């Protein structure tokens, strides 16, 4: 029997470390044949901590939300071939609650995540690892590799969706004594964690993609630019590079050929704009990460002025699969114009939040209500946010939009890198617009005037509206500023920063009007328009609210009606959540 525990950052935060120890303790000193292994995130973050048991007859079950006390009885039941199914989530062999939803994915980039030990190069090798590299450097010409990637129709997963094959071709055609490959692992969109899942769970797949790219374009050196907030991803990546070097997969005369490649990691220092490729290159060069005008594109003049190919983590993770299975096989998934699959990070008010992968062109409805399992609470769906600070909020009536670059663009949002934050009627759309604008305004590098100052003016207006001081003409001013920023900004940050505002005005105009005219926040979020009070007729003086209040704003003794001191109240809603007698009112 084999037990695999998910020890990625999400698992560890939910207590997977203790589960691993509990299993070790349980197995210690027992005469049973069980192998205990570590793996990363299988994507079911909502059910962490998770482990998977594979019995000797090849049947497997994934258990979730387990506690250390339950570990023993679950293992015992599996040894007896009568597995306990109460905590089972997913299984190809037994009836489990998520078989239909989560079982319906197509996993190419996440093929190994959550299945293999990301720190073991041998496990990667045992799963066809580095076979694509071997095929490429021993049997293929550079042009042939580029043709396969072009034919596959793979488009960059970092957001813009540019043809990967074409990009490689440009870098290949630009002759130079030195070329570079870069992997963009900056993943700055808040609410997106696909790249983190891939790097923590299967770092070798990204390295293999980079090696193949380096061979194809004629580069011999590469950088992975990784976000500082991802310490575990960096650790796994460092180990993977060291192991690959030791096995002669990175270095000189790779696999006995005359292909050489060295790979470095650059840790980001916290700047969203560094996800933009020219800023990223500046940052690797040790400068402030300010975007530059393109052309020249990096394929012509990139890192230290040399031809450079930059792709996203997920883009690289597709490459080895495409080489091994062929372009035609890849095109069987997804759409004609947009083949393959896409990984999404589901978060917010969705039941199965976590990391999933579906064919391109799957509708938002199928992602949210299918794989995603629907809404988390009993509040109805209101919107889904795609594309982070550059994207927008897609409302209920467009939920049958297929996820694919062009269709999403038509809604006013963008496909982005794959973060999907689901919102219910408890979310205020003006607050969301303000949230993103606050983010982009903070992260603007300051180079372009409209991006630097225009976003600030827009933010001031949104602050005004959410505090009940908005005017009707503010909506038009927002729209005007938005278009000026789009027209005059150099890079994608400014060009797309107004999207969250524009989409919310487009789809949720009545909510803006409620804030401005009625001084009311329909979702009950904007604290300035909101007050918590205690209904004297319903309060029985149980003191629970007073004890829950983090700032001691509630006074009252046992069996007496409690009162909220409005000056002290921070409107966190803790009392509202805590009251079992429906006595705390949001007005």
């Amino acid at each position, binding site marked *: 029997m084999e037990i695999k525990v998910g020890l990625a950052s999400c698992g*560890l935060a939910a207590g997977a470390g203790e589960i691993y120890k509990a299993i070790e303790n349980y197995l210690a000193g027992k005469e049973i044949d069980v192998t205990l292994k570590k793996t990363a995130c299988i994507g079911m973050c909502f059910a962490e901590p998770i482990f998977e048991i594979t019995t000797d007859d090849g049947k497997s079950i994934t258990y979730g939300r387990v506690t250390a006390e339950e570990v023993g009885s679950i293992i015992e039941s599996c040894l007896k071939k009568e597995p306990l199914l109460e905590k089972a989530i997913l299984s190809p062999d037994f009836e489990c609650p998520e078989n239909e939803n989560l079982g319906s994915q197509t996993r190419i980039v996440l093929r190994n995540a959550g299945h293999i030990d990301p720190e073991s190069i041998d496990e990667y090798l045992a799963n066809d690892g580095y076979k694509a590299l071997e095929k490429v450097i021993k049997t293929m010409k550079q042009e042939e590799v580029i043709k396969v990637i072009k034919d596959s129709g793979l488009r960059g997963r970092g957001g813009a969706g540019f043809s990967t094959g074409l990009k490689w071709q440009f870098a290949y055609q630009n002759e130079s004594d030195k070329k570079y490959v870069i992997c963009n692992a900056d993943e700055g969109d808040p609410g997106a964690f696909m790249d983190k899942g891939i790097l923590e769970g299967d770092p070798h797949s990204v390295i293999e993609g980079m090696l193949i790219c380096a061979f194809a374009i004629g580069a011999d050196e590469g950088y992975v630019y990784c976000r500082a*907030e991802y310490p575990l991803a960096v650790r796994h990546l460092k180990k993977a590079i060291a192991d690959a070097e030791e096995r002669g997969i990175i270095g000189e005369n790779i696999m006995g050929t005359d292909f050489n490649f060295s790979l470095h990691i650059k840790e980001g220092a916290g700047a969203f704009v560094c996800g933009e490729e020219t800023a990223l290159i500046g940052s690797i060069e040790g400068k402030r990460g300010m975007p530059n005008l393109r052309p020249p594109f990096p394929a012509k003049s990139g890192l*230290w002025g040399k031809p450079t190919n930059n792709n996203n983590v997920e883009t690289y993770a597709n490459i080895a699969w495409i080489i091994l299975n062929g372009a035609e096989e890849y095109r069987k998934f997804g759409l004609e114009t947009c083949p393959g699959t896409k990984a999404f990070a589901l978060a917010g008010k969705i039941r199965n939040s976590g990391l999933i992968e579906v064919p391109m062109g799957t509708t938002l409805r199928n992602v949210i209500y299918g794989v995603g399992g629907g809404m988390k609470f009993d509040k109805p769906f209101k919107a889904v946010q795609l594309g982070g600070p550059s994207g927008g909020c897609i409302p209920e009536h467009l939920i049958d939009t297929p996820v694919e670059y062009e269709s999403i663009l038509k809604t006013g949002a963008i496909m982005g890198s794959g973060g999907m934050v689901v919102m219910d009627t408890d979310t205020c759309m003006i607050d969301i617009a303000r949230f993103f604008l606050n983010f982009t305004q903070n992260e603007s590098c300051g180079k372009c005037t409209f991006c630097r100052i225009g976003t600030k003016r827009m933010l001031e207006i949104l602050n005004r509206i959410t505090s009940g001081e908005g005017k009707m003409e503010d909506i038009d001013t927002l729209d005007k500023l938005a278009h000026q920023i789009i027209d005059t900004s150099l890079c994608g940050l400014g060009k797309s920063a107004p999207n969250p505002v524009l989409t919310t005005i487009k789809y949720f105009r009545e909510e803006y009007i409620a804030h401005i005219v009625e001084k009311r926040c329909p979702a009950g979020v904007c604290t300035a328009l909101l007050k918590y009070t205690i209904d004297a007729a319903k309060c029985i003086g149980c003191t629970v609210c007073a004890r829950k209040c*983090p700032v001691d704003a509630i006074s009252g003794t046992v069996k007496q009606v409690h009162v909220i001191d409005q000056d002290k109240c921070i409107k966190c809603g803790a009392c509202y959540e805590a009251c079992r007698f429906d006595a705390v009112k949001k007005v």
Partner: protein
Amino acid sequence: MDKKEKIDAIIAKFKGKRGATIPLLQELQEVEGYLERETISYVAAETGIKIADMYGVATFYSMFRLKPQGRHIIKVCKGTACHVSGATAIFHAIQGHLDLTDVEDTTSDGKYTLMEVACLGCCSLAPVMMIDEDTHGKLTPDSVGKILDRYE
């Protein structure tokens, strides 16, 4: 190793390498928890990197700190998923618990520094915060105090 030896070792590692400013400052910051003025001047003199370039980088990237920080760093996630799950209330509850105002980020006893980050990549456990290297998820305004009190 004392402080000067540590700094000299870092200088030796990066001196003369191109593109070294950011990793150099990252390692320097680990020595004292922040970038001291004297350290920057000293490193500038030793490496030939201009003071202005170092400050240019240090003030551009949010990870660099120019002030001393607390023994424990609390990073409250204010990413999208955490925002819609009540991160603002969590932040205020921590501020309240530590008696911090909007303009201070470090407690007067030097125990904690409170910061915001945009997404720790654990969105499924929103709202989330990170204290030093540990991530804590599914926070509520009244659970944060208990978690904070566990740190010495």
